[in-house]
């Protein structure tokens, strides 16, 4: 589904990703862990199409298409979803209105008909239940006045509504209490299928107790330096990142 090869990316002339390679197949959950500053969020930003980053080398293939050539909105329309680390508040734009616009633009791009108001509202009811999001929040302005946990749940609600092929969760667990974490993880697990894939970016192993990854990758200094089964996460939790740093420092 996603094939990243030798990806180099920099911002303001500073290289952050230094030859990252990663392959994600349908049905898989990948966890990307790593110390602060390793390039985890940069990877998410580059995949979503943030224009501040300059791609200096490498390729990203998404379902047979060159992802890096696409505008942000087209990546979303092709089925890529980024759950933001810091979801943005947009006063005056209602959550449902915005989602309906998004859903219809995605459908139009894929040659599908617009969703009817009735079907849309039914979908909102169904999907908001997955993350136990109050129906009232669904009709409020996007993220405005939401608590941290509500914002993260809203991200997963949007993911449920848009039904992406590949979801990237950028530190979705940070700032969540254990109950919210469980709800968010449960939402992600419910949405999982053989046809979609998830990349979970996290600093803490805690989330991986709830979203069980097929692969764990350690990102350090702009590269994936270690990959392994889910047990690798426990090892990282136990030993911290220092042994990685010691091993790969140059």
């Amino acid at each position, binding site marked *: 589904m996603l094939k990243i090869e030798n990806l180099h990316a920099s911002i303001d002339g500073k290289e952050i990703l230094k030859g990252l390679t990663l392959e994600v197949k349908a049905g898989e959950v990948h966890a990307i862990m790593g110390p602060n500053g390793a390039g985890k969020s940069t990877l998410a930003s580059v995949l979503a199409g943030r224009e501040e980053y300059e791609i200096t080398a490498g390729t990203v293939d998404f379902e047979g298409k060159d992802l890096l050539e696409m505008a942000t909105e087209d990546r979303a329309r092709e089925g890529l979803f*980024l759950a933001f680390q810091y979801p943005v508040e947009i006063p005056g734009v209602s959550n449902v209105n*915005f989602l309906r616009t998004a859903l219809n633009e995605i459908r139009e791009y894929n040659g599908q008909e617009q969703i009817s108001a009735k079907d849309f509202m039914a979908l909102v009811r169904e999907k908001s239940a997955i993350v136990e999001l109050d129906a009232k929040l669904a009709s409020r302005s*996007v993220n405005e006045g939401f608590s941290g946990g509500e914002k993260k749940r809203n991200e997963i609600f949007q993911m449920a509504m848009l039904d992406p092929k590949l979801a990237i969760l950028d530190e979705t667990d940070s700032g969540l209490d254990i109950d919210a974490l469980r709800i968010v993880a449960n939402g992600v697990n419910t949405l999982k299928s053989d046809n979609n894939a998830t990349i979970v970016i996290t600093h803490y192993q805690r989330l991986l107790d709830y979203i069980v990854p097929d692969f764990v990758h350690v990102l350090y200094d702009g590269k994936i330096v270690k990959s392994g089964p889910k047990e690798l996460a426990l090892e990282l939790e136990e030993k911290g990142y220092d042994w990685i740093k010691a091993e790969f420092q140059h």
Partner: protein
Amino acid sequence: MNLETIIPEMAASVNWKLEGNHLLSKDLQKKALSVLENTAFPTTRTEAWKYTRLAKIRNGNFVAQQTQLTSNRHQIDSNAVSMVFVNGHFAANLSSTEFPEGIKLLALSQMEPAELAVLGTDLPLDGELFNAFNTAYATDGVYLHISANMHIEPVIEITHITTGNSSIAHVRNILIAEAFSKAQVIQQYVTENAATCFTNVVTEVSVAKNAFLTIDKLQYEDESCFTVATEQVTQAADSNFTINTITLNGGLVRNNLNIAVNGNNCETHLNGAYILKGNQHVDNHTVVDHKVAHCVSNELYKGVIDEKATAVFNGKVFVRKDAQKINAFQSNGNVLLSDDATVNSKPELEIYADDVKCSHGSTTGQLDEEAVFYLRARGIGEKAARQLMVGAFVGDVFAKLTNEPVKLRVDQLLQERFEWNFD
């Protein structure tokens, strides 16, 4: 005007070919002419005109032109009682002929001299050039009198159409809502095949005891045209006055909205939205003068400024010494969509009473790029994302419009001019 005796700097020296119907009293006209002979055009050194240059108006070669149009394609509300003026002259052929009970609605030109002689006397003339020009040269305008206790169901729609090359119009409207009456008025300013025209309109509004009056003012003139539009409003006790000023096109537009709240327990609502692009210059000057106690005023103006356009907002709220228990709120917000767009915003509160609740605020910024990215990351195209953000920003002003046909027209004009869909 006697050109030989006029000092070149003075307003009376302008090269405009004017005509006056001598509508108002001779004395008033004489006084107005003398103001013009003794007052220079304001420059940007004059505080009230600091950000608005009048050279294009002052140096214009405008000619008063009487033109007939065969149809009015601007009608907003098909059920409205309609009064149409073309280049400052009443267009009887385009106006309603039947009127609901409880109103007297006619053109000033249809009135008896004796009736006219007592009108227009409250408008300040000293140092007020555009008021003086209007008083001296008004060719026509609306006279609306709403009888006491009458609730007028149909909206009263006043349309000013400007047409031709360099035409000039001076229009004087007089709206009187008697005690306990209720009515809704639309005032719209539009152009048809017009270039470099100038319209100078004064509307005097009197809202009597416990009367409710709403004015939706919609400005959509050609980008080469100039307008100075003044509303001089007085409110008596327990009255409720709302004015929504929506400016969507026009080269140079100056709105002077002066509201004197003379009675206790009044409510005053001033809402404004301006969406500008090109080289447009739109200047909203508002004054709310709270002279007595126990009143509420709410002012919300928002603007979106693109390309090389300029917006000016100057909102003054006075709370006089004995005007206790006043709640006065004022807010002006602007979004600049380009590096060349400009806004000058100056909210001002002058409070002489000590037991009041007042606030004012002004914000100017750009669209939140992070929010635009967020919307795009969900599959919304960049243009639609920006439009959604802009719509959300000015949407709370449009939400104040209660008249459905006006809302529809605003949406239609936004679509036409900006390709924006706000619903």
